[in-house]
């Protein structure tokens, strides 16, 4: 028996009309991606998960006002960006009145050297270029979606993305630690 797969937008409209299981499907489709969105942008992994939940909570509560003006994922990431900005504002405020909260580096997933390397490279990009690159590379959004989310013309998105990739390529080329020892040993074994 062939089951029909509904688009994100169809599911969201169904949920807005009271079909609660449709929300569960959306949640399962996007939970990991949304979690990754916050984990790659925040230092505290637990907090990242809370914010991913907060984002879905907004989707849940605002469902009755949902209008299909854009892709659901654009809608979802627009909320996520607002939640993220609010969190950063709170963090700045905390830093102003209390002690700064530890490292600013994103928590990431694997604390291995390879990941640390990427995180450091990304951290050296300008904030604006950084966000455009993340949205493209990890959230896999189109230029038009990124432009809509960040309020930028397409040309600006393209320029920032190009600049970010150029900078990152330079960083990866000039500074990446290459594990030669294993390769050399293999060569020697072959010889």
């Amino acid at each position, binding site marked *: 028996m062939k089951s029909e797969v509904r688009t994100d937008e169809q599911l969201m409209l169904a949920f807005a009309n009271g079909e609660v299981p449709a929300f569960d499907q959306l949640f399962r489709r996007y*939970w990991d991606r949304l979690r990754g969105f916050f984990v*790659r942008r925040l230092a505290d992994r637990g907090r990242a998960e809370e914010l991913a939940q907060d984002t879905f909570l907004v989707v849940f509560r605002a469902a009755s006002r949902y209008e299909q003006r854009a892709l659901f994922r654009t809608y979802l990431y627009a909320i996520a960006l607002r939640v993220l900005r609010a969190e950063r504002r709170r963090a700045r405020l905390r830093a102003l009145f209390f002690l700064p909260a530890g490292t600013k580096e994103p928590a990431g997933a694997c604390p291995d050297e390879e990941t640390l390397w*990427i995180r450091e490279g990304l951290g050296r990009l300008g904030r604006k270029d950084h966000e455009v690159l993340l949205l493209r590379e990890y959230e896999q959004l189109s230029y038009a979606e990124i432009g809509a989310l960040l309020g930028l013309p397409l040309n600006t998105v*393209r320029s920032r993305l190009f600049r970010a990739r150029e900078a990152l*390529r330079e960083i990866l080329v000039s500074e990446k630690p290459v594990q030669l020892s294993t390769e050399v040993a293999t060569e020697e074994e072959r010889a």
Partner: protein
Amino acid sequence: MKAAIGREMTSHEATPHEVHPKEVMQWVDGELPAERATAVASHVSRCVQCRGRMDDLHKVSRELASWTVPSAEEMDAQLEALRTRARESGRWSRVQSVLRPAYMATACAVILALTILAQLAPSRIHLQEPEIRAKLKKTASPNPPYPEEARRNGIQGQVRIHIVVARDGSVKHLRAVSGDPILAKAAVDGVRKWKFEPTVVDGKAVEVESEVKIDFTLSP
């Protein structure tokens, strides 16, 4: 990998070229219109520099893709937690809707108006003892009888009684505030029978509350 990523890309930009480096990036990203994408694809297949650029873009993307966030194992638990929060926030939002500024302002205005009305037309006023005693009807006995037990035991003193007089002048409520228990009982029993002239404020009879003192003194 280090050498591969670094080659050619920068020297390319200074050279007059039919395809801009940004267009190669757009083509790799699938962001070019179909006809332009065909032209760029054709060019890249012939141009070593642009193929190098394309490879570099792929390599940068692969490097970035190595930063993975493992899938959440507890997705069902997260979904359940979200449902709980949604239910709780729903209740809270209902509370918040009641607490909305417009509603709060209306409630305050109503309370203020009722308070002013209550002040304008009081249902109960407070009088000092001489004032309330002045309203005591002549028929009422002002002094309760001295209790025999107290007299035998030489008990004397003052009893203070809080009293509420109804609109018709009868005693509605009273209780002893201080004094010897034997004297207090006698005082309360006596005062309960008192009758007062009704108190009128702005043409309307009101209740009166006051405190009266009854002295029990034995003759020497």
